[in-house]
């Protein structure tokens, strides 16, 4: 039964994580009111699942990667709910709920892991995985370009022409206004993030089916999740601290760098050798 509770918890965590994005990034209260109770119910199911697993095994120490991941997920969700209860802040949900979902994902597939019913289905998911990640990378690329142009435009507007002095070194009349560049950069991130999340989730499913739980130890996979984490941090800071302009551009650059590293990690990945072969 513990596996059923865990799978219910995983689905509920997934729903809560999806609701957390618009709730935090756009301040949509309706989604926040959905996310918190859903996460709480997921936490209860998760707790039941963990207690049942351990009591059945007559031990209180987790054994193996899957159990450790599940308990780690439980802790993350628990800490998030405690913070929400004590401080009334919901912003952490943007990290905590997706992280919990990813941590619970592999254990919820069961001891034997998940097997696709056919090669065709697997190939279909592979195509979606690739398409989602390419879309995320393209969106991120545009966001980084818009951020770079923002820096250029800002530098130009800060540049002070002296009477009889020379003009700025670069013609920049063609550049869109700062606000437009900022909105392009932000919108591209908002498009890229769900794509990247979906791409990583599907990739995780495909990888655990082929490799098992060890996929999470692969440098490529770890780098992908680090990239996702930086991405979330970027969105979180943009929203909560009003991060924009120069610092947002630098952070977008960091995400882009992480993306390049993830691509480079193909060379050393055992799970994901695409691009190195």
């Amino acid at each position, binding site marked *: 039964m513990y596996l059923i509770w865990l799978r219910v918890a995983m689905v509920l965590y997934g729903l809560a994580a999806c609701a957390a994005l618009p709730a935090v990034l756009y301040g949509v209260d309706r989604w926040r009111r959905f996310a918190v109770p859903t996460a709480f119910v997921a936490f209860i199911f998760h707790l039941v699942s963990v207690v049942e697993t351990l009591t059945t095994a007559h031990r209180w120490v987790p054994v193996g990667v899957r159990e450790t991941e599940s308990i780690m997920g439980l802790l993350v969700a628990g800490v998030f709910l405690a913070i929400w209860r004590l401080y009334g802040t919901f912003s952490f949900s943007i990290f905590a709920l997706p992280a919990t979902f990813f941590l619970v994902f592999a254990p919820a597939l069961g001891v034997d892991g998940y097997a696709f019913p056919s090669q065709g289905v697997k190939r279909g998911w592979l195509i979606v995985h690739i398409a989602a990640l390419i879309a995320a990378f393209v969106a991120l690329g545009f966001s980084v370009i818009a951020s770079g142009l923002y820096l250029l435009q800002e530098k130009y507007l*800060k540049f002070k022409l002296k*009477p009889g002095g020379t003009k700025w070194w670069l013609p920049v009349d063609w550049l869109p206004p*700062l606000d437009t560049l900022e909105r392009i950069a932000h919108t591209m991130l908002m498009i890229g993030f769900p794509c990247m999340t979906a791409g990583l989730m599907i990739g995780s499913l495909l990888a655990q089916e082929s490799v098992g739980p060890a996929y999470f130890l692969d440098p490529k996979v770890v780098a992908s999740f680090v990239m996702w984490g930086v991405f979330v941090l970027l969105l979180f800071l943009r929203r909560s601290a*009003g*991060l924009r302009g120069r610092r947002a551009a630098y952070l977008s650059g960091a995400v882009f760098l992480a993306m390049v590293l993830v691509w480079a990690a193909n060379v050393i990945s055992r799970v994901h050798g695409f691009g190195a072969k």
Partner: protein
Amino acid sequence: MTLRIVGVNHKTAPIELRERVAISRDALGEATSTLAALSGVTECMIVSTCNRVEIVAALDDAAPLAEHALIAFMQQRFGIAPEELLPHLYEHHDHEAVRHLFRVAASLDSMVVGEPQILGQVKEAFTVARKIGTIGGQLEHLLQSVFSAAKKVRTETEIGSNSVSIASVAVELARKIFGTLTGKTVLIVGAGKMSELAARHLVQQGADKILVTNRTRERAERMAGHFNGRVVEFAALYDEAPQADIIITSTGAPTHIFRREHGQAFLHKRRNKPMFFIDIAVPRDVEPAMNKLEGLFVYDIDDLQAVAAAHLAERQQHTDHAEQLIAREVARFHERQRAVNVAPAIVALQQRAEDLRQQELKRIHARLASLTPDQLAAVEALSRGLVNKFLHPPMQALKQAARDNDGMRLETVLNEWGLELDSNEVLDNTDINGGQE
């Protein structure tokens, strides 16, 4: 008929004189009517702006004193003694007058080259004159060509591309920061003329929430009334400022009223949303170090003037292109004008040929009596066709000679056909052409 332009402008007359001869919009119609009533003036209009007053008139050749009447009109109307007016007055005749009018409407003769208002002002003068009936075919044709050329200059060159006034530079910068100004909040600190002008430009571009603060509340209320805005207590300036996207400041404060720490506090409250400070006060109201803060853009009066001067220099670089375009358009106008003038010669030529054809048909009328109506119609069509074919080369030659302003060739063609028109009359029918290109 000859074309004359008499007037004063910013290059020839000081402001003291220009303001004495300026004609208000309301008085323009009456002044134009009075001018048109002068002996020898067949068509006329008056262009009056803050930088120029010009009389544009088509004069009858048969009234040689009409030209002096124009100057006398100015002296009498404005009550200015000849010795005071004449040194500042300029006159353009015929071809030069045409060129001058083209340049004026294209803003090549303006104080600020490329400024867009002059075209509207010339159009307004033309509309007023047309309404009261002082515009005839000559000026109608000329002015339509002038407007078309001015439009072409604006679209095909970049002489009007960048802002050159302080207020419009400020608007341009605001647009570079915010994109659209719709929905933006403007805070005016210090209710001066310059800040009102800048605010007016911003409102015209869509800024719709105006806050005004001033040490004297009455002045703030007066200005807020102009913009349907809200008065902010001067004591609450720092509390209210963060809600403004654009701050125009022009107080007489001896020290900076906005310092770096204020900027940091504003940004914090605004969650780093950008702010634009337009500081037109001397001494400055905004500490220059604020421009170093990310998201804050500070332009003082010197910065704005430097941008305006750079834009003006850029415009000057484009004037050569505009001058060439105007020269081409003037030449084209004269060509078209001569083509219009040669029309009576062509009509006379056609008439002459038609007379000859009729004479020949009459001469052989008896011999054609036996023909059926269909056969007669065929002969009629044949003779008409032949005449048209024969006329084609001389007609083309006339048109070409007119276009080339070639009097000798024109006369040769006219003589060959026994026409008694004066070639000078064709080429110089109106002296607008000048006949000396």
